[in-house]
């Protein structure tokens, strides 16, 4: 549990409010436990000193005490629970800031769903600890101490008898909620299986229908649903014990009170008022007793969640600025040099790039072609430092890429990744994502180059159109062109296009390339493409195969060679011509 102590820094920030909260708990509990004592006195009054005035007084005191206690109860929530939300805010903030620092590799190896589970479930579990668990622990402890002290002062024997069943209740609550939590995890797992199955089924509905597998799919789904029902019933079998046990144990306490307390009254050792007070106190202790077992679970779960969160915190930040960083570098021009560069994703995996040496002069265009999986994307990811080389060096303007401050490098490298990712924000905000201020001139300029103007004019809200689920869905080509515009808007010295026109039709692509040529006059570009038409005008074309440069030269030179490049060229002619002809 020492792990939970790491949360103390969050508590410390809210020290003042928390101490106030504890004070409020104390006041509220003290006034609350005073009520049964008044009740006791009033009941004893009926017998010993019957007086209507006195009784009215007691009734008023009870009401006033309740109001005071209630007011401080309100104040407790306004302090302690509010603090818990503040701490939750801090924890989330720290978590997010840490995520922003983690490297590309981490996000490639960890599914979004997995990180989301940490962001929701684990942070939620920790909040339950810092909020309700802390509140109830303090409340329970204080209440127990005061109530038991008063009960003992009235009758030690009766206190022992009536309180015996309560620890049993705590124990059961602890055990049962632990079991239920386990069962609940199993239920959640099955639920996510069902969700996945439905998702897959609906995505693959064409295949299912065309192979007439509907009946089988329904049966499969029914089987999973039935398992889900079974797991639910497993939980219910345990959960259903809760209420009866609660009744049984608290009920036993009351019966013991009546039986033993009754005997003591008959013996003249106690008054009816004492019994009434006891009855109230038992009522006051029931909830804290339940809370006790419940809190124990919350603490355990918070501990487990914290452990998972800490594995993220201890995740190595692979690409960061360090002693090598030369902060005097504030701009780059764009000459890229690969010197014996090798790269592999992990030690035990084969090399994706093997001893590559190459110079891309400032202002020139390098094109990379090759089959899928030959290392084209890895090549450009090294230039933007999403990954670092495993061996060799990359120089930009003669300076080692690792010495260039990360933000200087990335602010000058415009990247259009293979997977088009746009935020569900306006078109304008997406295009101008990389620059600080809204720049209308730049917006229209890059939209024009990316051939987006015509599409934008067809949207009712033009550049204010919202993309994504809550807005419009762009076609694949439109998305790619938006990503291009976004990369151009940062005014990059180096532009990287990773298969960025695969969904753009040939004619539009040609228009883009013409406009791009002018924009890129003094800038360096690296273009990856499967289409020969995209790369044929590049100053230098390399063909990657198995991590090495197999062929290198201009379009004409490579065609002369009649090797891989030629093959690819030949295969594509048919389709491209088709599009052009029709």
């Amino acid at each position: 549990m020492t792990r939970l102590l790491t949360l103390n820094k969050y508590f410390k920030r809210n020290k003042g409010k928390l101490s106030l909260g504890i004070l409020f708990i104390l006041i509220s509990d003290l006034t609350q436990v005073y009520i049964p004592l008044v009740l006791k006195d009033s009941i004893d009054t009926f017998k010993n000193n019957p007086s209507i005035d006195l009784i009215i007084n007691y009734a008023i005191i009870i009401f006033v005490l309740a109001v005071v206690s209630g007011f401080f109860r309100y104040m407790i929530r306004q302090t302690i629970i509010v603090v818990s939300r503040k701490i939750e805010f801090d924890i989330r903030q720290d978590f997010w800031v840490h995520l922003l620092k983690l490297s590309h590799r981490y996000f490639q190896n960890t599914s979004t769903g997995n990180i989301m589970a940490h962001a929701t479930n684990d942070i939620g579990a920790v909040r339950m600890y810092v909020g309700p668990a802390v509140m109830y622990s303090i409340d329970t402890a204080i209440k127990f101490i005061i109530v038991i002290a008063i009960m003992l002062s009235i009758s030690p024997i009766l206190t022992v008898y009536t309180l015996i069943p309560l620890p049993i209740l705590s124990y059961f609550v602890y055990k049962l909620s632990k079991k239920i939590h386990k069962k609940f995890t199993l239920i959640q797992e099955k639920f996510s299986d069902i969700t996945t199955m439905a998702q897959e089924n609906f995505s693959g509905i064409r295949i299912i229908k065309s192979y007439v597998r509907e009946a089988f799919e329904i049966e499969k789904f029914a089987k999973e649903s039935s398992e889900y029902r079974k797991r639910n019933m497993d939980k219910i079998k345990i959960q259903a014990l809760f209420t009866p046990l609660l009744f049984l144990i608290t009920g036993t306490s009351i019966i013991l009170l009546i039986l033993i307390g009754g005997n003591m009254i008959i013996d003249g050792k106690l008054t009816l008022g004492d019994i009434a007070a006891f009855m109230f106190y038992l009522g006051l202790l029931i909830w804290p007793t339940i809370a006790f077992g419940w809190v124990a679970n919350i603490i355990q779960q918070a501990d487990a969640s914290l452990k998972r969160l800490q594995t993220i915190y201890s995740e190595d930040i692979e690409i960061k600025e360090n002693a090598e960083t030369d902060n005097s570098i504030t701009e780059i021009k764009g000459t890229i040099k690969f010197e014996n560069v090798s790269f592999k994703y992990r030690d035990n995996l084969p090399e994706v790039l093997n001893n590559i040496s190459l110079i891309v002069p400032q202002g020139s265009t390098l094109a990379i072609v090759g089959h899928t999986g030959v290392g084209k994307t890895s090549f450009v990811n090294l230039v933007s430092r999403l990954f670092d080389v495993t061996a060799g060096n990359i120089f930009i303007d003669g300076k080692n890429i690792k010495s260039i401050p990360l933000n200087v490098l990335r602010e000058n490298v415009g990247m259009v990744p293979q997977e088009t990712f746009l935020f569900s924000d306006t078109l304008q905000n997406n295009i101008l994502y990389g620059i600080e201020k809204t720049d209308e001139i730049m917006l229209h300029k890059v939209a024009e180059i990316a051939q987006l103007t015509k599409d934008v004019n067809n949207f009712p809200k033009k550049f204010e159109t919202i993309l994504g689920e809550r807005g419009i869905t762009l076609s694949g080509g439109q998305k790619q062109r938006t990503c291009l515009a976004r990369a151009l808007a940062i005014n990059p010295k180096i532009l990287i296009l990773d298969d960025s026109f695969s969904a753009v039709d040939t004619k539009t692509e040609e228009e883009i390339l013409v406009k791009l040529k002018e924009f890129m006059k003094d800038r360096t570009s690296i273009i990856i493409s499967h289409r020969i038409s995209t790369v044929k005008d590049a100053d230098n074309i390399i063909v990657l195969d198995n991590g090495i440069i197999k062929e290198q030269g201009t379009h004409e030179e490579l065609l002369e060679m009649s090797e891989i490049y030629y093959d690819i060229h030949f295969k594509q002619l048919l389709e491209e011509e088709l599009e052009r002809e029709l």
Partner: protein
Amino acid sequence: MADLNVEDEILGKAYDSKLMKRLLSFVKPYKKYVVLAIIINIVVAALLAIRPLLIKVAIDDYIVNSNYKGLITISVVLFAALMFQAVIQYFLTYYTQLMGQNIIYDLRVKLFAHVQKLSLKYFDKTPIGRIVTRVTNDVESLEELFSSGIVMIFSDVFQIVWILIFMFAMEWELTLVSLSVLPILIYATFLFRKKVREAYRDVRFHLARLNSYTQEHITGMSIIQLFSKEKKEKEIFSEINEAHKKSNINSIFYYAVFYPIVEILSSAAVALIIWYGGGNIIQGTMTIGVLFAFIQYTEMFFRPIRDLSEKYNIMQTAMASSERIFKLLDNNTMIQDPEVPKALYNFRGNVDFKNVWFAYNSDDYVLKDISFSVNAGETVAIVGATGAGKSSIINLLNRFYDINRGNILVDGIDLREISKSDLRNQISIVLQDVFLFSGTISSNINLGDESITKEQIIEAAKIVGADSFISKLPNQYDEEVKEKGATLSVGQKQLVSFARALVFNPRILILDEATSSVDTETEMLIQNAIKKLLVGRTSIVIAHRLSTIQNSDKIIVLHKGEIKEVGTHQQLLTKKGIYFKLYQLQYKDQELK
């Protein structure tokens, strides 16, 4: 779950008799459970209400009268009642939950089965996430209604009724006095419910916003980092996080006010009992045991009323969910089977398109007056640019959609006269984007059809050349295929889908050749596999490979929904049209090589 779906956010009324009637129809098979539950409920409620009465008796008759023996007896009775109550309470909970789970199961499977029947038109128009939500979360939110909601409402009502009966029987005046705080409690409860619901909706909105922001930006993390926007995204997150915090703190207020008010009212009731009851006791018109009983009764009275707001919420969510579920169940976007379908005897595989017109949306025709025929065993290649209508031809032959005008015939019978399953059993389809299901390689080839044996699967894999890579996998044919087939390469996935098409041994094969560029070796495998697939069956191929096109019996050049040229390779060459031009270009290149 995280997305902000407007349709899913609307909460309407808590009770709608039409919806309720339909919901109750799902309860019908479990009528016995309901009757039993109600009976048990009456008993449990009575046992609960009788305890204060017994305690009153213990005080007034035995303690006050110093009767040890009587006190023991009544303690035993109390304990017996308690045990009995505990036991039947357990079974009550268990069986009502079992009923709820069964109903949820029925509903979920029924809904899923219904979705299976819907035509592609529905899937085209509806985001998959939304259909998934219907089958999962929406059904789930009915669980509470069925498993505890309905029964709990009965139980609360019975409890209130019993308590009232006992209270009035004991002291009707005191009953009225002590219950005088009730109107305030009821008013406070409903006000609280309303406020909390608004606050809670706000919390949910901000939580959803927070989650969808996080989800989206984790997915797009590389963009954030590539554009050096970490600082800005930290600020944006902070704003969203802050709004979420504020909405939560806002909702705390209502809880912070409501719960103390309930406690104060409860103490007020006690104070009233002391004041009024105490006066009666002093005057000797009431016993002290009654006072004890009343203090307990008012306490018992508070819980069901306080919980009313919760019940209301359950009802409201259930109504909103069931409305969405029923809307889906009522959706009849289906391709209807004929009432008396014609059987396909000795199906040969002739295909005829006769003046086919087709539009996905009203008059926006994607196929215009298409006519062609394919004889059994022949291969037709369809060439054309994106959007020419190639995929629509595939969709129509499988009867995924019905055509607007014209006829499509197989072996001379109109598709609309054959049952869909008969038709589709004769057709295998290979799509460009291969879809693999979670499961094993085997289950992805036979799609769970047990009548297809392991040997047949291996045989098919061997023919298409997939066996060589499958047998190298650690678990071979039992190797698990992960979500979206991430473990296999693009080329390997295609080979698996070829094996799938082959193992069902169709008379008609529909193949949408993939354009993706794969390494030379896999490309060879794919070319060979295609050749083998086409042998001996009617094939319609959306072709991208020259070899496939040249070897086909007929080539159709499609442009903007119309057939521009049709004929064999030779015929089209002599025609000197589009195809000729294309071919010339290729030819020149080949000479160059």
